[in-house]
Structures are given as C-alpha cells and as structure tokens.
C-alpha cells in the first residue's frame, strides 16, 4: 500500500519533465492567444491607410502615423473622445463619492436591514443593466437631461456603483477597527479619525476602484449608443459609423479604446483579485 502511494505521488523523472514541458507550452500558448490579436491591431494602427486596406499584410508594423492622423482629423471624433473622458471621469467621481460611504457602513456597523441592502447591491449583478438605458431615455427627455454627458454618466454610475461598494467594503474591512478606536481615545471624533487614520490607508485602494469605474464607463457601448445622439462618446461614435467608416478608422479607433484599458488594468492589477474575491461572498 505504502509502496503504491509513493509511486503515484512521485512520478519518474521523465514524466515530470514531459509534464513540465506541456505546462510551459500551455502557459506560453495562452499568453500568445491574448497578445497576438492585440499585436495585429497595433500593426494596423501604425500603418498607413493604404497598407491597412491592402493584401497581403506585413506582420511587422511600418510605423506610419497615417491612420492615426486620419483618425484625429475625422469629423467629430475628437469631440467624441472628449465626451468619453468626461463621462468616465464623472462616473469615477460619482461612484466613489456615493459608494464609499456605504462600503464603510457595511464594514463597520451591524444594523437592521443590512442583509436587504446587500441583496440590493448583489441584485444589480443578476440583470443586464445596459438595457435600463431604454426606459431612462424617456425619463431623461422628461427631465431635460437627454443627450447629455451627465445623463449617460448617471447610467454608467449605476453600472460601477455595486463594484465601488463591494471594493470599498473589502478595503475598510482590511483595516482593524482598533486603529480607529485608538484615534478616538486620543481626542479624535469619528470624522477626524477617519480623515487622519483611515483615509491615508485606504487611498491607494480607493484609487484602484475609481480607475475600475473609469474603465467600466470608458468601455460601455449599448447605453452610450442609446442615450447620446449629438454628444456621442467614442464607443457610440464608432458603433454608429461601423457600416460606413473605412477600415483604418475602425482600427485606429479600436486602438485608442484599448490603450487606456491596458494602462488601467496594469495599475489596478494588485487589487483585481481582492475585488473579485470579496465579490464572491
């Protein structure tokens, strides 16, 4: 029995080597699966419009800025880009300002209705939220904020808010309450203790969740396309012109959409797993 178990547990040198080889190849292939399509987009973006529309393609970029200059000069696209940034920034601010207090409340207090509140937050994930843009379009016309970046930012905040609450909840839970209590005994009240002790500790995490909110808004397509007509965001603009716009415009637009996402995911990578770990509960 013992002999049999050791045999199973310790495979021979050769199988281990073969296993190692399969493992490393698998990892490399999966990395390539993610990176190669991105590289193709990069090639197309850094090629002249003529090259983008020609065949066959070279697999090395020619570092021509023709497509990007065409993109920058295309009528209305810079306004769309500006709108995208404004909506995303508004979403970022609103979701943190509204969401973080609730995250703090969830982590520090036991109160009646806490479970109900958590249910409301979790419920938002069981629904395809962008669809809500349809009824909101009508509501916004009534209130006069239709086709404004602010109206769209409100919808994007609904998308980002559950994440903001859950992330800040996990951040505040990670800080022992004793720290706060120590500050109270030293003459702070709740507010000053929060400002002087808790805030500096959670600031990096809050920044990460703000960035996450930014990305959610930056990437959103459906609600943006439904709610904006004159003040289009970049995603809405690109979607609207998919049938008519030339290939090099699409690829340059796609590239501009991808770049901030790459940087942002890199900036928040440490928090990505903490966020989703807590989002499981």
């Amino acid at each position, binding site marked *: 029995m013992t002999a049999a178990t050791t045999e199973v547990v310790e495979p021979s040198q050769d199988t281990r080597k073969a296993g190692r080889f399969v493992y490393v190849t698998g990892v490399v292939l999966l990395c390539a699966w993610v990176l190669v399509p991105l590289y193709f987009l990069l090639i197309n973006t850094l090629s002249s419009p003529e090259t983008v529309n020609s065949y066959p393609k070279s697999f090395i970029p020619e570092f021509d800025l023709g497509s990007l200059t065409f993109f920058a000069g295309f009528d209305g696209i810079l306004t769309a880009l500006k709108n995208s940034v404004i909506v995303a920034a508004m979403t970022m601010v609103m979701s943190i300002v509204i969401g973080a207090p609730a995250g703090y409340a969830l982590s520090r207090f036991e109160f009646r209705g806490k479970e109900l509140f958590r249910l409301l937050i979790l419920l938002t994930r069981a629904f395809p939220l962008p669809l809500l843009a349809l009824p909101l379009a009508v509501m916004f016309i009534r209130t006069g904020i239709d086709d404004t970046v602010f109206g769209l930012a409100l919808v994007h905040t609904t998308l980002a808010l559950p994440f903001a609450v859950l992330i800040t909840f996990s951040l505040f839970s990670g800080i022992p309450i004793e720290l706060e209590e120590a500050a109270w005994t030293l003459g702070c009240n709740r507010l000053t203790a929060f400002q002087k002790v808790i805030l500096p500790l959670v600031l990096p995490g809050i920044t990460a969740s703000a960035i996450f909110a930014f990305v959610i808004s930056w990437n959103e397509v459906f609600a943006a396309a439904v709610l904006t007509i004159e003040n289009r965001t970049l995603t809405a603009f690109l979607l609207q012109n998919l049938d008519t716009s030339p290939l090099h415009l699409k690829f340059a637009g796609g590239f501009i*959409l991808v770049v901030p996402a790459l940087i942002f995911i890199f900036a928040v990578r440490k928090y990505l797993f903490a966020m*989703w770990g807590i989002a499981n*509960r």
Partner: protein
Amino acid sequence: MNPRLLPYVLILPVTLFLCLFFLYPFVLVAQQAFSNSSGFTMSNFRDVTEHWKFPISLKNTFLLALAVVPIQLALSLLMATMVTKMKKGRDLILYVWTIPLGISDLAAGIIWLAIFEQSGFLNSMMGGLGLIDSPTNFLSYTSPVMVFVAIMLAEIWRATAIMLVILVAGIGLIPKEYYEAGEVFGATPWQRFLKITLPMLRPSLQTALVLRVILAFEVFAVVQALGGTLFPVLMGETYAYQFELLNSGAAAAIALIILAISITFTLIIMRALRVPKGATI
C-alpha cells in the same frame, strides 16, 4: 451624530441612487412594453415575436452562449489551476491573461475584424503559407459558419478573463491543508482537482457563471463589429427597434424578454450550484 443613525445615513445615497436608476427603470420598461397609446396591450410582444427576425436572433443568441460559455469555463479553470502552481512570473502571466478584462466589447470586435476581414491577417497568413491563391471574404453571407466562428473566438478571447479573475480569487480562499491531506492519502493531482478544488470552488463558480451567462445574453458590440446584420442577436434587435424603427415599445418588449431569459438562467445556475448551509469556508 447619533451612532445608530449613522449607518443609515451612509447607505442612503446608494439606496436612493439604485432605487431611482435601477429599480424604477424596471417599472418603466415594463410599462413601456405593455402599453401603447390606448392603454394596456400585448401588441408590442406580438409585433416583436411575429417578426421574421425574432426566432433567428433568439436562436443565434442561445447558440452563441451555448458554444462560448462551456469553453470559457474549461479554459478559465485550466488557466486558474495553472496560475496557482506557478512560482516565478505569476504576476506577469496573470496581468497578460487579464488584459481582455479591460477591453471594450466593441474594441474586441474590431481586433478580431483585423484578423478575419478580407485583407486581414488570417488571409495574409494562409496566402503566405500558399494555402489559398486569393483572399476570401470570411465575413459575408455566403459563409455563415465563419461569421459564427469569428464571433465565437472574439467572445472567448474577450470574456474569459472575468471568469479567470473570479476563479483565481476563489482558489486562493481554499485552505492549503485540504491539498496536503489529499496528498497524504495519495490523491493524484487530477483527483485533488476533482475532489477538493471543484467542490470548494462552488461559490466562485456560481458567481462566474451567472456573470458570464448574463453577459452572453447581452452580446452586442462584438456581433455588430464582426457580423453586422449577418448575425442578428437579441440585443442588436433591441437597438434596431429603438433607432432604426423608432419603436420604443417593441424595444422595451425585447428588453423584457432578455431580462426574463437572464433571470431564468441566474436562478437555474444558483440552484444547480447552491452551497449547502454551513458549508462555507
């Protein structure tokens, strides 16, 4: 301030916001779907379901979800287990694998368009290898299978990362002792995966599948970028009713149908993967 009131003050903004922009729009969308100028009616639903495109887009949406989600589940489980074993370079590999998490569905569609379009990289590659004489147009009505495959690959590429992140966070929560015990009793890696990882991962699998399935029924921009009208899906029909046909009642009716499908699947997944009471880590 009264400490018993403080938590309610802190959660008030989120609650108000979600009531106004999440719960209330549901009432509105139902109202919109069930009414026309003369009051209560089912005619919106009749219009929508009797349209020749409806059965096709319903079938396409389901087919796509059915083809994509199981592959993503398997792939994300594989990637998550690969990462847990990793010692060197874990952070880098995880960053690379989670890049698509930050990428918009529209951008993902554009990225795969660079590969599949007529002068794209797939044609160039096949031409370079001498497999074809002239580039073929993959994304046309004459090759519906290729359109489906392109959309499927783009979806797998884009949305596996979200499941991966949830599963990696979940695996991190499984106590190491279970694996050590398994090893002592002679369980092979495969047995450990089946008897420890999978059952312990149930809450994470639940979250990951619910999120992913809902996203699958929301599929929109990827399809627009790659297939356009060649591959009608439910969300695309909603958009078309709202914008091209200017029939917001019908758009609301489809929105309700998508909602109903999403909720049904959420309940099925929660039921199938429910965690027995008292069995959490």
